């Protein structure tokens, strides 16, 4: 059965077509979900793509988290559904408290667009499931506010629960503990600053992103088992 990925569009989002194209390349079908809609519809996974939702005004993600669609995303996540926030989507997920921590301005206080190397640090997330920890991937980053930060207790918890999904091998933005991506306790909600959809075609320089999006689509076909959220899922 074809996996359907819901790609959430806020005003100011700009990576929705790219994410849709990349997931379709992997055989999934993509459906754009408008921010003002209170329902996700029949989707197997949700991606919050990159861009500048609501212009990043006030703070990236700070306004988008109040969009009607976010209540539906929360319910979907609580039911164990895979939810991935890429770049601006990661910022939205932290603002919505679906993921811990926050993204602050890059070390150096400049926007950075370049291809970086990340290492898969945990296979517990829906985005890295089945991928060998230690595997290195070349994936572009494209952000001003991408420096991940959290308090020491949260960091200890992330480390202790093996929730750091991706780490930079050469930290480009000052993120604490080289964190490029983290997941929630159940592993079904993941946020990352790199853009895997930008690394899905050798013509563009790298197709390492297919590893991550492929894992997401595989996870979406077979929901996580054993997690408390999935066990109580009713949706």
């Amino acid at each position, binding site marked *: 059965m074809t996996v359907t990925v819901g790609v959430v569009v806020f*005003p*100011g989002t700009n990576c929705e077509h790219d994410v849709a194209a990349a997931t379709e390349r992997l055989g999934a079908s993509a459906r754009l979900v408008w921010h003002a809609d209170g329902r996700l519809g029949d989707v197997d996974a949700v991606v919050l793509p990159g861009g500048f939702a*609501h212009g990043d005004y006030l703070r990236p993600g700070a306004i988008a988290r109040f969009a009607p669609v976010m209540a539906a995303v929360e319910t979907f996540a609580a039911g164990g559904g895979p939810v991935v926030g890429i770049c601006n989507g990661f910022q939205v997920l932290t603002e919505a408290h679906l993921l811990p921590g926050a993204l602050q301005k890059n070390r150096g206080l400049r*926007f*950075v667009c370049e291809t970086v190397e990340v290492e898969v640090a945990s296979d517990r997330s829906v985005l890295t499931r089945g991928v060998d920890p230690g595997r290195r991937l070349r994936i572009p980053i*494209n952000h001003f506010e991408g420096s991940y930060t959290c308090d020491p207790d949260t960091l200890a918890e992330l480390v202790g629960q093996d929730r750091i999904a991706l780490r930079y091998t050469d930290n480009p933005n000052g993120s604490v503990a080289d964190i490029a991506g983290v997941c929630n306790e159940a592993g079904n909600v993941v946020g990352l600053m790199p853009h895997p959809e*930008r690394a899905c075609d050798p013509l563009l320089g790298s197709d390492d992103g297919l590893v991550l999006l492929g894992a997401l689509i595989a996870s979406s076909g077979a929901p996580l088992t054993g997690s408390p959220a999935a066990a109580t899922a009713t949706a």
Partner: protein
Amino acid sequence: MSAGARPEGAVDDPGVHRALGLTDDEAGAIGRILGRAPNHLELAMYAVMWSEHCSYKSSRIHLRRLPTEGPGVLVGPGENAGVVDAGGGVAIALRIESHNHPSAIEPYQGAATGVGGILRDIFTMGARPVALMDPLRFGPLDDDRSRWVAAGVVAGISGYGNAVGVPTVGGEVVFDGCYAGNPLVNVLCAGLLPVERLVLGQATGVGNLAVLLGSATGRDGIGGVSVLASAGFGGDAAAEEAKRPNVQVGDPYEEKRLIEACLQLLDEHLLVGIQDLGGAGLACATSETASRGGVGMDVDVTAVHRREPGMRAWEVMTSESQERMLAIVTPDDLERLLAVCERWEVRASVVGRVTTTGRLRVLEGWGGEVQADVPAASLHEDAPLYDRPRRRPADLDRRADDDPARLPPPEDPGKDLAALLLDPSWVYRQYDHQLFLNTVVGPGSDAALLRLAAPGVPGGEGRGFALSTDGNGSWCSLDPRAGTALVVAESALNVACVGARPVAVVNCLNFGNPEHPEVMWQLSEAVDGMAEACRALGLPVVGGNVSLYNESRGADIDPTPVVATLGLVDRLERRPPGVAFAAGDRVVLVQPPGTRPSLGGSLWAVRRRGHRGGRLSPLDLAAHLRLLGLVTGLVADGLPSGVHDVSAGGLGVALAEMAVGGGVGAALAGVADHVGLFGEGPSRVVFCVPPDRLGTLTQRARDAGMEAVELGGGGGDRLVLDGLVDVAVADLAAAARGIAGWW
């Protein structure tokens, strides 16, 4: 007073039109057009529409000499953007603009609003903007102010371009003392559209409605195109208002929603016409759409959604508030248009109605007082046309005779070579250059190469397009005609280096004060040089922009025509070779036989010796055309492992950039002296090629009438030019990155 009556308030005082930037002759012409004395509002509208910026009154007479037609040209100059047929139902809209003066005053917003303006020109044509490029020229970075300007401009492009969601895929960064007081901030935008979505900025259909979309209209940027803001023409209060900053403030989030709303309106076939609001604001958009459609328009100024209360009609009509569009719709489609705008949170107000009269009337409410009543077409079609005096600069012959080849040669050519390198990655890593998954070759190469694809634009599968922007003020200062032809040749060669066939150009003519006869001579010569090169190379000029008055403290900038070339790739199957050496491969210089590079106007002479004299190397356009075909073919066939054109800095800089680009050195010979190393001239390309393909490359070069000079082989970690240069590639790379050290 009822609608239809003559507007009141005729102005008799010549001080008013002079303060608005109109000459006495121009004011007289307006009176003759109207058959009466104009009032304040009418004068204000003519002043902005007849400004140099809007009317090209000093340059139009020369621009006519450019070739503008070709088999693929769907829309040439005069519309908001040129449009070229890419085949398969896909068209490419292309435009380049300058935002030099705003960027000199307020670098961040000046550059940001330059990006915003060019995007609107592109989606006005029905195209989705898919690529931006920024040719930038600043004073040297050891000057505090130049550093502030450069950092602000780059941050403005980054801040606006990234947030509006259009990738910045390339450009240029040049530092030269002549730009210290007057930086050049040019911006190019390319958009893709299905051919059938092509729309023109015109109003037709009597009774149709003009709807203003986007930002509220404020007092920002009033008279940005003329001198309005420096004039008090309503008493003290207006004089106070005039002190507000003239540079507009950009809002990329508003623009992003405006783009999406307009493209949806076009896809749903809800628009009769659409026009962006740029220079001269509503006065320009309403008169141009009416004039192009051969109709008239009534405008209700009270219906314009405003940012602040108390604005006068002339302020509303000439405001240059950003992120606004004027859509022409039938009354039946209005409701649907408003629904689309509401979805994208874009404000929309019905401000005008299409009439049969051919006149632009400004009303205070429908049926209310007539504030202005002028023939719509007269605002731009009747703009004055000047053939300003031209004079060849008196020092040109003396400069030409002052050959930099007579300068003492460098003691350490390797040191000079390192000093000429500039790695612009510090700039472009601040730009999103990858959005839309199209960027096969991004910034930092000879040209950007993109897939011919965009959301909602099918038909370009497996194909690509290339863009390069090029300029060289040092060349054009010595000989504007030959220098401009060299710039056209280089730009075309750049797109060939990524495997594309050059098909069209747009230009941005950055010059000094047109009231200086030497500047007009430079402009005229540059146009002739461009026309000659474009004709010979089969490149129609599909659009352009002229930026004059680039001067500071009485000194004009070097004449700096910037050329952007569009190329097409018929089969985009692999990434083209990089600007790089590959270990074990052969390094070959391909050029027409008898090529003699010159140090005249070269980067080495200017930058290392402060010498700005000499003659340019001659350009053989017929040979260059053959070279373009050769290079496009070789790259498209995947023959070379590395390729780079020889440009500013000469062969030495080209070789050093290939060494740094691939992180691989080379052992080379055959360069006799510093003239061979740093001399500049057209029609030269360095290839790196696997040994087993060397014979094929050499043969194909000879078949094209070129010589292929084998310089040596790639490998190792040093760049060695026998007897001249022996330097570590790492040291070259470090020197190139020096730009980042200024911040």
